[in-house]
């Protein structure tokens, strides 16, 4: 029952708010926060009680099962916290104090909660897709802006493309005899289907997590409000992919290929998208790319089988990234810009935001003793345990790069306030109100302290990173920061990196444009050819008739033109014998009768 409440409360209250519309705008922010608090309470309770429930869904075997186990417990709390933080923060933003926004956020969070507690593929897929749709609604929240709308579409379509993998996986699981579609039973599918299931799951997870080659949608998603980004990038949506992979490590293992593939994709994303982040001049874009890169570590962990490391990374990153996005959002609200160049001195002018941002960035950079430093090394330890040295090296490179871009961001905001206000930026008279600051502080604390979690729950982290690894990564991070600090202003932005490796253009060129072209071609085909050939037989016969009667005038009725023309010709032909002349009737009748007699004689 607890679990039903956990997923029911946000979903129902969210749906209620979303449906109520403007009438509830006034009460929405408060209601949202209250619900979020309730959810957090439920989440904690659920994490403690570890409930398992289910209900019949489709055919007898396929049930709507939910369960909270270790991984889920961690996730539900993370999700609840992130949601609460985001709702509290957005309460301070005038544009977001609508029941529509709060409703969608709650629905979104509810869907994520369902995702992380789902025990069967069917329910997981449902929540997974709802999350995608809600991301559309949230990214496109400012629907009058064509860019946000387009960004929303891109996000939804890209993730849905990946979701197709889950549909196929579900089918393949059923084909493979896993009639219940239970996640736990998926690995028991026989070979041909096992691979299909794994491939589908991997595709879906990579798409949701904006791993290569799907990363571009996350860049677009920055058009949404900052709290949305915070939610999307931290505990939900992109994290869902990583969560799914972590949850289904037992499925990846027996295939032989899925683990290494996933690991390599994760590592590649960590490195390449890290470089992309370095090249960004827009703070939110930088953070977005860094999200991809950081999620890459989780994916790497999943590929290497390091559940604990991956989960830790997930939680730590959630706290950190929520913090960073909210900070960026706060600046965006008060300063009206998110360009790094225009944010010079922002931290000095808004010290609370600046400090918390710096804490978050330091964590992101992997500076000891902050949370991501630990979690990253936990992931890398899992990789190393496998003996995948190249991957380990790549991971370290990724870590170094993350230090570089974190340092770059921090460098900018702590620069002295420029003398003249950049054009287009809002006059700096805004204040960061309490609703915004409170979550920042809390999150900063979390981001800093979550690294201690494994030590609290002693021994739960396996394999634990060796001391030398921790030291090595800490040193590398520090060194990278030091180097960056001095050259931050000169970091260039190579085109491919600045434009997110051109992934979106590639997607357009490879998938969107051909599809549209095919669609247009087929539409023309449908109109011009298929429609007209409705009665090709009649036309063929009609050809002779038309030769006899060329005067066939164009018919008003365009739709049935081809048939009609043919029919008209035939109709005229059929009327030709009726000349009105009796002697011609006679001749025709006589000839016809003679033919009939001959016919009868011949066929006999």
């Amino acid at each position, binding site marked *: 029952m607890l679990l039903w409440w956990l997923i029911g409360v946000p979903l129902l209250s969210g749906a209620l708010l979303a449906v109520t519309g403007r009438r509830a705008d006034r009460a929405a922010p408060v209601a949202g926060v209250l619900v979020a608090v309730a959810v957090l309470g439920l989440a904690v309770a659920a994490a403690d009680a570890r409930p398992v429930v289910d209900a019949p869904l489709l055919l007898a075997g396929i049930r709507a099962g939910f369960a909270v186990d270790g991984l889920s417990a961690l996730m539900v709390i993370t999700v609840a916290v992130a949601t609460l933080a985001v709702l509290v923060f957005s309460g301070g933003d005038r544009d977001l104090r609508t029941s529509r926004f709060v409703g969608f956020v709650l629905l979104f969070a509810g869907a994520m909660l369902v995702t992380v507690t789902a025990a069967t593929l069917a329910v997981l897929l449902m929540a997974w897709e709802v999350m995608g749709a809600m991301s559309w609604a949230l990214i496109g929240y400012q629907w009058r802006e064509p860019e946000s709308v387009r960004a929303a579409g891109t996000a939804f379509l890209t993730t849905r493309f990946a979701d197709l993998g889950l549909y196929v996986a579900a089918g393949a699981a059923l084909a493979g005899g896993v009639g219940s579609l239970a996640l736990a039973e998926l690995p028991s599918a026989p070979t041909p289907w096992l691979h299909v299931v794994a491939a589908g799951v991997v595709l879906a997870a990579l798409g949701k997590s904006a791993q290569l080659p799907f990363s571009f949608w996350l860049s677009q998603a920055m058009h949404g409000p900052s709290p949305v980004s915070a939610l999307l990038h931290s505990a939900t949506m992109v994290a869902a992919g990583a969560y799914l992979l972590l949850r289904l490590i037992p499925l990846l293992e027996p295939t032989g290929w899925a683990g290494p593939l996933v690991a390599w994709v994760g590592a590649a994303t960590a490195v390449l998208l890290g470089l992309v982040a370095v090249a960004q001049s827009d703070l939110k874009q930088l953070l977005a790319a860094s999200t991809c890169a950081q999620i890459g570590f989780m994916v790497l962990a999943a590929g290497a089988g390091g559940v604990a490391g991956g989960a830790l990374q997930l939680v730590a990153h959630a706290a950190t990234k929520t913090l960073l996005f909210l900070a960026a959002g706060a600046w965006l609200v008060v300063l009206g810009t998110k360009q790094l160049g225009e944010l010079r001195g922002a931290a000095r002018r808004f010290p609370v935001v600046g400090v918390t941002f710096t804490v978050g960035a330091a964590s992101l950079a992997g500076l000891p003793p902050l949370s991501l430093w630990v979690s990253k090394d936990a992931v890398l330890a899992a990789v190393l345990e496998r003996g995948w040295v190249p991957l380990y090296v790549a991971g370290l490179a990724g870590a170094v790069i993350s230090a570089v871009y974190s340092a770059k961001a921090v460098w900018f905001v702590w620069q002295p306030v420029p003398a003249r206000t950049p054009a287009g930026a809002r006059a700096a008279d805004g204040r960061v109100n309490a609703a915004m600051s409170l979550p920042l502080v809390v999150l900063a604390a979390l981001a800093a302290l979550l690294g201690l979690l494994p030590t609290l729950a002693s021994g739960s982290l396996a394999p634990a990173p060796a001391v030398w690894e921790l030291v090595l990564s800490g040193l590398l991070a520090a060194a990278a920061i030091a180097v960056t600090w001095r050259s931050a202003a000169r970091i260039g932005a190579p085109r491919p990196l600045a434009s997110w490796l051109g992934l979106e253009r590639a997607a357009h060129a490879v998938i969107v444009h051909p599809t549209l072209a095919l669609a247009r071609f087929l539409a023309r085909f449908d109109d011009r050819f298929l429609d007209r050939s409705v009665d090709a037989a009649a036309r063929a016969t009609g050809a002779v008739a038309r030769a006899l009667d060329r005067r066939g005038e164009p018919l008003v009725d365009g739709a049935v033109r081809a048939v009609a023309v043919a*029919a*008209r010709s*035939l*109709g*005229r*032909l*059929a*009327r030709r*014998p*009726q000349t*009105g002349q*009796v002697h011609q*009737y*006679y001749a*025709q*009748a006589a000839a*016809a*009768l003679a033919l*009939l*007699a001959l*016919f*009868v*004689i011949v*066929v*006999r």
Partner: protein
Amino acid sequence: MTGASMMNENPGALIPELLLLGGAVVGLLLGAWLPRCRQWLVRLLAAAAALAGLAATAAAATRPGEVAFGTSYAIDTLTHATRAIVLVAVLVALALSVDATAGHRRETEFVVLLQLGALGTILLGGANDLLLLFAAFLLASVPFYALAGWDKSTLGTEAAMKYYLSGAFLGVAMLTGTAVLYGVGRSTAYGPLREGLTVAPVAAAAVGLVAVLAGLLFKVGGVPGHFWVPDVTDGTPAPVAAIVTTIPKIGGLGAMYRLLLVAIPADTIDWPLLVAGLAAVSMTLGNLAAFFQTSVQRLLAYSTISQVGYLLIAVAVAGRAGLAQPALLFYLAGYAITNLGAFAVVAALPSARTLEDYRGMARHRPALATALVVCLLGLIGTPPTAVFVGKLTVFTAAVEGGFAWLAVVAVVNTVASVFYYLRWIAPAFRSAAEQAPPAVLESGGAAAAVSAYACAAAAVLLGVGAGAVLPLLSPA
């Protein structure tokens, strides 16, 4: 089989026919003494005769079948059904012609000619001997020639001329065929003829059969004896057109069915294929030619040609499909009532001659428009009208009799026919610009309209109640 022992000249077996004849003779005499405006008595007498004939038919149908007047006249289910359908058609024709003929100086003759023609048609259906067949052909033809020219208009007389010339020419063919069949079969009675034909030279028998069929095709208006149909239907008043496109078909098809089934061994002449071909050509030609007609009567004329095509399917499978006879007879009944209904609508709007004249009909004459739609959809074969059951049984019989291809042709044709029926329905339901009914939609009288309603209702009821009727139509 022969001679006196079987000789049955009991006139009691022919009560319906005699009633018709008596009605005609008495009616003619009566009419000679009646004032012009009291000629409706003759019509009443004719109706009474027809009703009495129906009662007699019903009574006779309960008795087992027999052969009367030597072997020349068969009284069986086919004959009973022919009688019943023709008599009902006569009743409808009497009703729907009231508006056009009441008080006319030749009203009496109209009624009498109708009765005589109907009598000939019934005899056609029962004829079991080539000689009687031709005599009945003659009797079923001449009165209708006169009906065609009855109104003495320029178009009506032209129609009569064409009708007559077609009939004379194909009548000659029919006599030729009779002579040839007699020559190779040594008899004109169907039973002995069949024995004679089993050993007869095929070529001569084929020529004879085709020539005899030519006359019957003239009666039913099937290709190649169809040339008169459009011209006569178009040139005559709607009641006459209704009569000549409906009544002769009933007996003609019955005669064809009996002739082929009883007298012509399919082993000698492949008549099923012949009739199937005729059916296919008839329905196709009729439908195609109807496509772009603008005159409603001409359109209906071609539609009757196509309907003959469907009816011929049942003839083609005579003896090869159990359903052939009930299918034929039921379709005939449904066709007769539906076709008369459509013509009744035309008769009710005597000024509307083209499809475009019917524009706005639904608004100004909603009931009549409904009747029209029911009848036209009925002719298409939309369930649950009678023609649908007819088509269903006919198609079933066709497939059962090995003519699946013919059923396919019929299906395609049915779809094609929808087009021109809809060309008529569509303007009727288009809103007319003006509020007042246009002049062309002025009523021609209540009788035709009432007949139209009755026919439309009957077409549906017959379809719905087909279950009760069909068992009566199977061969005993």
